[in-house]
Every structure is written in structure tokens, then in C-alpha cells.
């Protein structure tokens, strides 16, 4: 698609014809729908969007969107996305990936991306399992979940991405369920529009290795209380929630990261004068 007619923006305009590698019934299909619906809702020009991911099932998403994309290496999507945004601040930058990619191998980048507060949106499709390697526990997996790699379960408390995002300084924190395509699209659009680093955890079931997650659609519910801009209230609520509260849970007011590349200027011969003795 070379041009978009200025009046009509359809989600399908943002999709490529490439057939996803995902299993039939994977929640990520819904996430792809939500992401493209959010782009249409915001009337973004696909040429001005960059979707950047790591490695894993969900990280395959860039090639399925008709935007600029970078399918990077395991855990490093956020770092590459930061480089893109700082180099080209006018672009809409989406980082995307899974729970293993983002919270385990890429965990340090998650902390510092929240803290740096670069103006971009990070979507994590959380299915509490490494799917591409056929079913190993991830940082968000229940401690008793049995697997070949960790028979009888890991015995480890799950990582709480939303609490960690808040503690690390993320400026927008939300949780959605992939099955709620419209609701998720609306939250993603909100996240893109919000200045600074926006984090959206999408509960996206893995039907192959976690068939038990089919029950998620019964468990999820809209957050009981309205969103807040008070980190203390947000912390209390995130620490005490059941993991299935959806919606925008925190919307901060911190200034986004301010060091970006600008227009070419200056004169190198002036710079070299500092070496003259």
C-alpha cells in the first residue's frame, strides 16, 4: 500500500498477506487485530510506524503488519526500539514480544525502558509459557505448573510485570485480554497517544501448551476502580489485584525522555578547534 486515502482507515490496511506461524486459536491473532485496529483508529500512516520485536511466537508480529518492522534478537526488542525512537522521534514506535522475551532474557531492558520513559508503546503478549521452544515455564508461570524442564513446577513466585513497570517508572500501565479485541484496541490506541513509555500486558492464551488458559475468558474482568495518576494508589491496587483486572490501571504525568536526534547542524571545523594548541 503506497498511499492511504485520507478519510478511510481500515484495520486490514495495516496487515500484510503473510500467514502467521501461530497455532490455530492462538491469542496473538486477536492481538494482531487489536494492534491494526488501534492504528486505524488513530489514522496513522503505516510508513510512519515502526513495530519492533524480540524472539518468540508473539515476536513474529512485525512481518504481519504493513509498517516498517524489525524482528530483532531474543530479549533486545526494547533496546532496538529505543534506538529507532531516539533517532527518529517523529515515528510511532511499538515494541512487542512475549513474557519470556520481555521479562526474562530482556528483563533489564524492561526496567530501564520504563525508567528512561522514551515515548513508545510496549505490548507484551503474556501466555505464561515459552511456546516457540515447546512449553517451558516463563517468569510469569505459576510455580506449580509441571513441565519437562521443571518437573513438578519451578517453585518460584511469578514475576509481576505491572508492579515492576510501576516501580521502574513506566508512564502508562494497562492490562487487557486478547479475546476482547475492541477493548484491547482501544487501550493500545490510548497507550500510543500517551506521552512517554506505555506498557500494555495482554493476556494472550497459548492453546497448545497451556490449554488451561482457555478459562481466562471467564476470569478476566474490568478493573473495579477507575484509573489513577497516583503511583502510591496504583501500587496498592496492582499489588492486591487478582491478575485478571483489565483496563488502564495507571496513567502518569512524567516527562518523556528528551534526548533525541535533531536536524543536522553545526560545523565540524569548529569542533576540531578544541584540539588546537
Amino acid at each position, binding site marked *: 500500500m503506497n498511499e492511504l486515502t485520507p478519510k478511510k482507515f481500515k484495520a486490514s490496511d495495516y496487515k500484510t498477506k503473510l500467514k502467521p506461524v501461530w497455532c490455530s486459536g492462538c491469542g496473538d491473532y486477536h492481538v494482531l487485530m487489536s494492534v491494526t485496529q488501534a492504528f486505524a483508529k488513530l489514522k496513522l500512516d503505516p510508513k510512519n510506524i515502526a513495530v*519492533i520485536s524480540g524472539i518468540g511466537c508473539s515476536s513474529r508480529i512485525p*512481518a504481519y503488519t504493513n509498517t516498517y518492522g*524489525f524482528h530483532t*534478537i531474543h530479549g533486545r526488542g526494547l533496546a532496538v526500539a529505543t534506538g529507532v525512537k531516539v533517532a527518529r522521534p517523529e515515528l510511532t514506535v511499538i515494541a512487542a514480544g512475549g513474557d519470556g522475551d520481555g521479562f526474562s532474557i530482556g528483563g533489564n531492558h524492561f526496567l530501564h525502558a520504563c525508567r528512561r520513559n522514551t515515548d513508545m508503546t510496549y505490548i507484551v503478549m503474556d501466555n505464561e509459557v515459552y511456546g516457540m521452544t515447546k512449553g517451558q515455564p516463563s517468569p510469569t508461570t505459576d510455580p506449580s505448573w509441571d513441565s519437562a524442564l521443571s518437573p513438578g513446577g519451578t517453585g518460584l513466585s511469578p514475576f509481576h510485570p505491572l508492579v515492576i513497570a510501576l516501580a521502574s517508572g513506566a508512564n502508562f500501565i494497562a492490562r487487557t485480554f486478547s479475546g476482547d479485541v475492541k477493548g484491547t484496541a482501544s487501550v493500545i490506541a490510548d497507550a500510543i497517544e500517551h506521552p512517554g513509555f506505555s506498557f500494555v500486558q495482554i493476556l494472550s492464551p497459548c492453546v497448545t501448551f497451556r490449554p488451561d488458559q482457555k478459562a481466562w475468558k471467564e476470569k478476566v474482568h474490568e478493573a473495579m476502580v477507575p484509573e489513577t495518576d497516583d503511583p502510591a494508589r496504583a501500587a496498592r491496587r496492582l499489588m492486591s489485584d487478582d491478575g485478571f483486572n483489565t483496563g488502564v490501571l495507571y496513567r502518569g504525568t512524567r516527562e518523556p525522555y528528551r*534526548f533525541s*536526534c*535533531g536536524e543536522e547542524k553545526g560545523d565540524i571545523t569548529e569542533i576540531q578547534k578544541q584540539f588546537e594548541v
Partner: protein
Amino acid sequence: MTEGDQNTSVSVAMVGSGGAGVMTAGNMMLEAATKAGLYGLMTRTVGPQIRGGEAAALLRLSSRPVHCVDDTFDILVAVDWKGAERFAGEVPLGPHSLIITDPATGDIPEILTASGARVVEVPIGELAAAVDGGRANMVILGLVAALIGLSEAPINEIIAKKLRKKGDAAVTASRAAVRAGYQAAVEVTSPVKVATISDDDTGHPKRWLISGNQAAGFGALRGGIRFVAAYPITPATEVLEWMSPNLQKVGGTLVQAEDELASINMAIGASFGGRPSLTATSGPGLSLMMEGIGLAVSSETPVVIVNVMRGGPSTGVPTKSEQTDLNIAVYGLHGDAPHIVTAATSVEDCIFTTQWSVYLAEAMQTAAIVLSDQFMGQASTIIDPPANISFMAQRLVEKAPTEDYLRYAVTADGVSAMTLPGTPGGQYTADGLEHNPKGLPSTLMEDHRDQMDKRDRKVADFNYGDHWADVEGDEGCELVVLTWGSTTNAVREGIERLKAEGIDCKLVAIRLLLPALPLQFDQALKGAKRILVVEQSHSGQFLKLLRAHYDMPGEIKSFRRPGPLIIRPGEIVDILKEWNAL
């Protein structure tokens, strides 16, 4: 100093425990020497302590450009001897040398006096204490300046410049302490003076005082780098610290990353966005960056990595030099991953080689690793203003893609036009997965083969011109020294000395370490019968690289040792003379 050539250069070591100010005194002496029309090189050796450890400023001044350290020091002067035995091995002395000591600071380490050097006692501490606010390092500065024949005027000028912010009292005190040093020198016989220099020598364009790390940063900036991602590491940090404020002057920026994994990947992201990008690191950081560098190769995203080598493996010897990241730079990537590895051959050449590497990375859309080392990176040197270099970042960009645009089109020279985000109709997904010409993931044998061929071709067939090596000497010369990196300068000086004795030897210092260029190599080595391979590595990484990639004619000899002990010109002279006599 070399025998029979008394005034060629003078080498001075100023030592003291950290905080004694020997680095300050050394820097002032170097600047004053520049004002007096001299050239010079100052390296430093420090212990691992953050503050308070042993430190030595090692200077060599000359009326001719200086690129390496001499065989021995003419003058060794100490504020104190705390910890001095730990670097005594790096400060070789001889019977002609002069050691100046303050009797109040205790005994000179035996390893130093064993050289037979003359010892002179000067009450440095007392002289400093006699001046209100006086410091021993300034007394030393005056003392050494007087001994080597440097006049007081340029020293006073530098003191005013450097201490202006500290106020008039500091300037007055320092000048008085320097004066005390000059007066004390009257009692001392100097072993050597530099050639007479006019203090108001203005007949040449302003010379530059620059370190290798600054030079690498400057070359990068001049080549078009506009984005840098940084994680601090010794001894590369100064590259980043120099670039941060200077990038802002040209519309670029530096991001401090959370680790080296982030810094290489941020640089790749920024380059994908269209900005020529760089990161700088040292061994441990380079190890962490390897997967990212492979991504740059596979996705054909240009990126430059300046790696300032230090002693390894692991944390190794962080503050001291070694040429041992050659293997990881060349072979560290998994898979078949054609990329560029270059190495600067001098402090000054850090400008050229880095700038050229920016050009290469951008022109071939791949990763270029530039190797420097602690010796060059942290050495300050006085140079003539370097020539302008025409190599600039110039990427093949598709600005108006048509419907059939292919990001990874298989082309004759292997380079395919890249679209930048924001270009209508140019959308593609860059990928570390193998892909087809359109950029879509592919596991097909044909796509893998074609893309591998293309990535290899663009690097192997590129026209590198004459810059692949510094080749100096007559064609057909039977005696050749092959070397690389900072070692080049000691070799060059050794060869010059041999020439004065009637022995001809060729120098081949390789700047382009990957890819190998066998045709050019064969041409440079034509007629060689004896080849000495010189490097600062325990295992002979360079020798093994040469053996793997090239056919070397004749007899091969390896002269190598690990860091931090620098290779000196006299050693090259001795080996070649002995070999030549056989």
C-alpha cells in the same frame, strides 16, 4: 634517546601515588612542549585504584613527531615511591638515566637502581612546602622542564590556562613552585636536552593535542556518526565522553544504555532509522555485543563498534594495553557472518581508521569493528593538523520504491538499496532470521545460499584502495616486518634505525584485518624471504590470522608477548639485526 643521536628525543617518567598530581604535571609539560614547538607523546600507567594508587606519566618529547615510547627513560622523577615497584618493569632505565628522588620519601625500589642509573637527591617536598600553597608536582614540572631545556614562559602560560578557574592564588603558587624547581635544577647535571626550540615558534599551523580515544570519536563524528549508545568501560569511556557533548553540536545524540547488550542494539535501531550509529567498548563489552553484531550483519544494518583493547581474558588487566581482541573481533560471531574488522595504527590514525570504518559500514550495510587499544586510546599526542579525509557515511537508500521493491534484492555487488522508515511504499521487516529478497523469513536452501553469497560478496569484492595496510619500504625487500595496531610505531622506528645502519627492511602494518585481501598481500610481500610477525599477544593471534588467510613466503619468525609491557623499537632492531647476520 638513542646513542649517537643525543638530541632526537627525551623520555621522562614522573611518578607518584594517585592524587600526587603527576598526570596534571605531565599534561602541563606536554602542552608547554607544544607551545615551544615540540612534538610529544604522553602515556600513562595507573594501578586499579579509583583514587590513591600508583601512577606514572610517561612522556617522550622531540622536535620530530613522536608515535611510540623509547627503549629507556632519560629521567625518572618521583613525588613519592608508593607502589612504584608495581610499574617499575614498565619504566626501563639504563646507566645513562637519571633518577631524581626526595630523600624524605624513602628508598628507591631496588629494581630501579639496579639499572645503574645515576641518583640525585632533591628535597622536592621541602621546596614545595616553602611556597605558600605550593605542590610537589609543580616543583617536579619546573625541575624537569629546566633539565630538558624547556623555558619557563610556556609553562607559566599553561599554568594560567589550566588553573584559571581555581583563582589567582593557585596560579601564583604553582608558578612559584615551578620556579623553585627551575632553581633546584641548577645543582643537577642533565643527561639530555631536547633540540633547541624557539619559544615563539609560530611558523607552522597550530598543532593538535589529542588522545586516541578523542581521535576515534572525532573521526566517527567527521565520518557522519550521529547516534551513539554508550555503556562505560575502561579504557573506552573517553571515546563516549568526548562524543556526548560534541554530537549535540551537530544534531546528534548519545544515549547511556543499561548494558552493552542494549548499547549495540540501540545503535542498530538508530541505524535502521537512518542515522549512522556507533558504540564504543572494550573486551568484556565486545563479548556481550556479539549477538547484536550478528543481527547487524544478517539484517544488513550498518553499525560501527570501536573496541579499545585491554588485557584479557575476562576482566583481565582493565587499565593496561594488549592486542588480544583480534580473535573475537574476527571470529566471534556465530554462523558465517561477513563483516569488517579494522585497526588503527597510531594515535593519529584513530581519526582516519574510525572515519574510514564508518564509510565502510555504511557503504556495505554491515558491522565494522574498529580495534584500538589502551595504549593509543589513553595516550595524548601532539600532531600536525591531520588532513581532511573524504570518506563519509554514504548509504545506498531507496527514496521512491516501486511496487516490486525488494529490500534484500540479490545484486551484482551484493549491496541492496535500503528504505528508511517514513518512505511511502518502502515498508519491510528487517530480520535476524534468514529471509528472501523481500525480507520475509525463509528456510529455503536457495534463499539462504543467495543471501549468504550476497552478504559475502559485498564485503569481499569491495574496493578498499590502498588503505588496507601501511606498506613502507622498497619493493622486493627481503626482510619484512608484519604487524598491526599500536605496535606499528615501535616497528617503524626500529626499521628507521636499521636503515641508518644500512639494513633495509619493509614494514607491512595491516589496517584491514577482515576481510583478507590475498592479492594485495601477495603484492606487498613479493620478494620477501624473512618475515618477522610482531604483536602484543601471548598466543600469537595475529600470526594465526595471517596463517589462516594468507600464503606467507619464506621464513617466518614471531616476536610476541602479552601486555602490558609495550614493545620497544630497540627490541625490533636487535631481533632483525641478529636474524640478518645469520
